[in-house]
């Protein structure tokens, strides 16, 4: 499959406005006009076409782009002052996927900076001495997981962090992003995914979370940020991944979700839009692409028969990322004409990883297993990057390492409430299906 292989001219599969121009159709056609010349040289109908095998992931340029970031950011980056933990995660995860090894100094400096972002409450701020917020907390813990050393893991004060998470919990099951902050499905994912990695999921922490997430599924089938909001790729991934961790994917209509999700892959560009009638964007390669392994896991558990390679066009997505989202000097981007940044570099590569690797859901061990026989690589064989974990978006190896590290350590002495700590002890060391 893929778009380059389709024996039609690109004009035939272009967007057709039916003679009715609106803001939406005009910008859509602009994007397609940017994409077509990038695809054309490789198109199956093109005379003297360039062989697909030449499509290249510019790995070294991307590693260099990311490494320069680790050395230091310019004064232009002041707007990201409260996103330092995020940038650490974006850069380190991207480097990890690309197979780059961190130097001893990079590891030490990262642990140092992430520790400086930690507050006495146990949460992490976006930078040193900034109060805690669940989004940078998720980014910080993922960063430590990517470093993957005992020293990194031990930065986290799990008891305190747990108490802080509990302090953000709302009566409807959701979480505030910070004290007095906004509430949406991101908060659920950041808290639940972090708690899962650290083995601090308890019944009181997870209470009613699935109900809240399910109430955000819209008539379109996707999930919005808050009940009533429009279905959106980012929130859909966050909601679905949360339900997967909680073993409560049956709370949503997975058929409707699949219907919506597949309709978000663009027929010409091959990448994903985040919402209906919006434009393709490289970062949704992960946010939308990432929902597929999760939905496929549901289908597998329900014993449905489907294509062994899953539900979306994995070649087409890789074509978009490789031909339209790479900056020649390093870094990846939203769409042609945009500049590269760390966020898009991270999520384009994460999406690329999910499109290359195929995950089977192992119903005995209740976990995602990579199936190397179904790996699909567009372009050079050397384009293959590491497999990312479909729930946590850190590499499979790093996810395994941190969860096994904490699997044997229950947290005791949470608060003064005896029943809470004992409930934590009860759920630790137990296989997933027995939890909650």
């Amino acid at each position, binding site marked *: 499959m893929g778009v380059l292989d389709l024996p039609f001219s690109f004009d035939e599969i272009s967007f057709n406005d039916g003679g009715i121009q609106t803001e939406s159709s005009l910008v859509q056609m602009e994007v397609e006009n940017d994409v077509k010349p990038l695809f054309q040289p490789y198109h199956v109908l093109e005379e003297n076409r360039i062989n697909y095998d030449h499509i290249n992931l510019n790995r070294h340029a991307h590693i260099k782009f990311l490494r320069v970031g680790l050395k230091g950011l310019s*004064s232009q980056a002041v707007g990201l002052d409260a996103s330092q933990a995020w940038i650490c995660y974006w850069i380190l995860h991207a480097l990890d996927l690309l197979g780059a090894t961190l130097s001893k*100094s990079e590891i030490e400096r990262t642990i140092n900076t992430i520790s400086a972002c930690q507050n006495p409450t146990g949460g992490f701020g976006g930078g040193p001495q900034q109060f805690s917020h669940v989004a940078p907390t998720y980014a910080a813990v993922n960063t430590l997981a990517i470093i993957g050393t005992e020293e990194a893991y031990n930065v986290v004060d799990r008891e305190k962090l747990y108490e802080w998470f509990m302090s953000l919990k709302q009566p409807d099951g959701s979480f505030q992003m910070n004290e007095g902050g906004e509430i949406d499905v991101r908060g659920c994912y950041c808290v639940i995914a972090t708690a899962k990695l650290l083995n601090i999921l308890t019944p009181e922490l997870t209470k009613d979370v699935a109900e809240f997430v399910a109430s955000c599924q819209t008539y379109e089938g996707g999930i919005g940020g*808050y009940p009533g909001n429009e279905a959106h790729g980012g929130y859909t991934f966050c909601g679905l991944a949360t339900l997967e961790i909680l073993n409560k994917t049956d709370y949503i209509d997975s058929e409707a979700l699949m219907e919506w999700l597949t309709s978000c892959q663009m*027929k010409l560009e091959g990448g994903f839009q985040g919402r209906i009638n919006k434009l393709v964007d490289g970062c949704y390669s992960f946010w939308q692409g990432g929902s597929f392994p999760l939905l496929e896991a549901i289908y597998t558990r329900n014993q449905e028969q489907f*294509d062994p390679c899953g539900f979306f066009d994995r070649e087409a997505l890789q074509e978009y990322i490789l031909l339209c989202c790479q900056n020649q000097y390093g870094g990846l981007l939203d769409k042609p004409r945009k500049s590269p940044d760390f966020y898009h570099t991270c999520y384009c590569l994460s999406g690329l990883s999910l499109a290359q690797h195929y995950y089977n859901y192992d119903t005995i061990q209740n976990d995602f297993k990579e199936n190397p026989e179904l790996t699909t690589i567009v372009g050079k064989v050397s384009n293959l990057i590491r497999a990312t974990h479909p729930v946590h978006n850190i590499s499979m190896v790093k996810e395994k390492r941190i969860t096994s590290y904490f699997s044997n350590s229950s947290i005791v002495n949470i608060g003064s409430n005896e029943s809470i700590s004992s409930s934590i002890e009860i759920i630790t060391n137990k296989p997933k299906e027995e939890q909650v």
Partner: protein
Amino acid sequence: MESVVDQGWADVERTYQDEGPFEIMPIAYSIEYKEKMDILRTLMKNNEKSERALKLTEDIIALSPSNYVIWKYRQEIIKELNVDLKGELNLFVEYAEENPKCYQLWHHRQVIIEKLNDPLDELQFIHDMLQYDSKNYHAWTYREWIVRHFNLWDEEIKFSDTMIKDDDRNNSAWNYRFFILTEKPDNDIEAVLKDEIEYAKQKINFDPTNQSPWMYLKGIIEKSKYKLADFADELLPFCENLQKIEPYKYALEYQLYTNESILKTLNSEKEQEQQKDICRTICSKLEECDKIRKKYWKYVRESY
């Protein structure tokens, strides 16, 4: 080093950012930002809630609008000082035009309006913001909050229509229409269903390739007490008529869901088998004309 801030801060000690002994990814802060942050940390540590602190937060927000720390501190100061809350909203306008997707800005506005306990001209304000970007997720989310919080449902169907008229492919406006009709207290979907079906059909006739009204049509019927099958007599011919010239994938999709809905009403195995054949045929057509979703349609076809 010469100070970039005025003498009013002479009495305040500086609290430097403590990034530990060695840092990854240091930001080369401008002297101005660094010095202002050094002062701000001290103020926050001392819990100072003053006019000058308020002013300082504004200076820093101008340099780094998405810094949630500053916004939160500002909200704490506002709580204690007798600040002109309406002036606070004007501050928002300045930054919103440059940073329309900043979570903090919108949340701040919500906090202020909640405090004022008055929706003022917020609906107009949001409309203005939507002129810059008619699909701004934050703006739509905020509008839903305003409408819910202040119970301002009455004119909103009209508003959704205005936005849909501007761009009938604006899916946010369609979602909003659905929100108003289904979330309004004491709503009666059955009472408006006929009109809404007509509304969606009109927009589909105008442009059958527009996915938004198709999804809306299915969504609103399924939200009511009826099933898609109940409208098969009207909507299946509607879909077929549209396709006399060329196949439209969303029309085919709608035919499929309606036929699937009919399938669920059938009891005899023979009838069910015939109905499944109809569904499978539609899936095959979709596999042809909706290539990027080929694997999905194949799965659907084989699931019958």
